[in-house]
């Protein structure tokens, strides 16, 4: 496989409460032959708080990082965090369409940004650039007990003009990536319903109630695990799951796992290097692994056992007909 290389922006959360997202993404990208290079001395994207202050200011905080990527001579930046992604995409969108705005943003920066970087989520890179066939080819293990509800969060494919990825109402990229890795996925209605976002600290109860609805919908659909692609979603659904139970009088105990961790498990990587021990609700009970060969053997035996039964039934049916 030809080695691919991308500028990689992990973002602040992935250095702290979402460490396992960074660890698992790096491990999976390595397994897929993708090289990730971090811009030197990157800074925070500004996220939600900056855009409550000023549009130009928010774009400048994001664009400082895009300038660093331009200096690396890279034209694609990938980030696993939807919030960083949106900050970069909005800066790019507005600066490349409005010269006056671009001038104002660059007026706040030491080094001007020339709008030469396209930002893509790491999910998009895996789905589009690596592709489903390559994802399947690398699979070594099957998790037969696992039934995953893929949860995208609000902004991976929204708003469509800026996100330029997947469907804004019913995204399928994560479903397809997980399915390609031999993981059983369960469709559910709250794929994109907001978990409560960044309000966890100042508005805890509201966030607990919104997250509770997502958990409820996934559990009702029959899933025993939720796959996520956003550090904030993960935190609200996993770290705060006990709070959700207290606030809503529920009793959820469903693991919230980054889709990259699940891919890594299907690739035979160790739970430790994927940071599986860092999530609060353990996924151990649903992530039993057997090798692909073993799994295929079991399936073949099951099919063979069914055949004589089927033949017997058909023979019996024929007899009654006669």
């Amino acid at each position: 496989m030809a080695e691919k290389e991308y500028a990689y922006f992990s973002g602040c959360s992935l250095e702290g409460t979402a460490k396992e997202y960074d660890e698992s993404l790096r491990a999976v990208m390595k397994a897929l032959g993708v090289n990730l290079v971090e811009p030197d001395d990157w800074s925070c994207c500004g996220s939600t708080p900056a855009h409550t202050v000023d549009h130009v200011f928010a774009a400048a905080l994001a664009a400082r990082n895009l300038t660093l990527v331009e200096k690396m001579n890279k034209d694609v930046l990938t980030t696993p965090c939807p919030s960083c992604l949106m900050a970069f995409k909005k800066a790019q969108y507005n600066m490349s369409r409005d010269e006056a705005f671009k001038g104002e943003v660059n007026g706040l920066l030491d080094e001007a940004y020339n709008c030469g970087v396209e930002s893509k989520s790491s999910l998009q890179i895996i789905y589009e650039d690596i592709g489903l066939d390559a994802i399947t080819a690398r699979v070594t293990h099957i998790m037969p007990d696992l039934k995953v509800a893929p949860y995208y969060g609000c902004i991976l494919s929204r708003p469509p003009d800026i996100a330029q990825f997947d469907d804004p109402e019913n995204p399928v990229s994560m479903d397809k990536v997980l399915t390609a890795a031999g993981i059983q996925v369960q469709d559910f209605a709250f794929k994109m319903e907001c978990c409560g976002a960044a309000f966890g600290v100042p508005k805890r109860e509201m966030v607990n109630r919104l997250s509770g609805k997502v958990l409820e919908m996934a559990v009702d659909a029959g899933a025993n695990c939720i796959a996520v692609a956003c550090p904030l979603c993960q935190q609200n659904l996993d770290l705060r799951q006990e709070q959700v139970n207290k606030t809503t009088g529920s009793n959820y105990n469903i693991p919230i796992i980054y889709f990259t961790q699940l891919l890594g498990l299907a690739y035979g990587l160790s739970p430790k290097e994927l940071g599986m021990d860092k999530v609060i609700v353990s996924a151990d009970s649903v992530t039993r692994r057997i090798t692909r060969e073993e799994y295929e053997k079991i399936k073949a035996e099951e099919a063979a056992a069914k055949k004589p039964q089927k033949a017997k039934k058909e023979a019996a049916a024929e007899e009654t007909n006669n």
Partner: protein
Amino acid sequence: MDTINLTEKTDWAFIEEVKNESGQNPSLCYQCGNCTAGCPYTQYFDYPVSMVMRLLQAGQKETILTSKAIWLCATCETCTTRCPCEVDVAHIMDTLRIIARREGKVSEKDIQLFYDSFLDSMKKHGRIFEMGILMGYKFKSGQFMGDAELGPKVMSKGKISLFPKTIKGADKVAQIFNRFQEKAKKHG
């Protein structure tokens, strides 16, 4: 639904201000309610988002800027995605927050405080220091016990650092803050 008392006169300058700063045309809204139907936060809003749009068309500056709705919006972009008139509603909400901040009319002080703790941390270190934000927020809000039970959980997983990591270019990031503040002062 409550009836809105349109006691304020229509503030045409305010409508222009929002138009210019957001690049959006609020008159395009024909009150279909699609944004409100999809808004995950609507049960927490004092005015549903479609009503914020109507208040904006009527130039009800004070009511809008002091509303809780504009601060409880998480920019989930559902309204923008579904608006049949292609109004970027979430961007208008964003613009309304910016104006409310500028005019010192923020109704949800805790949310503003949390955002400010975030930005303080960023200005100081160039990146976000999660523990610092939390402590800064607790100190300023006086809510010391909120989320206290989460501390041991994150600690035991080794996910949160007790000490900030400051990037080499933290001063460059701080300069973006300073230049913006100077510019804001100049323009009043």
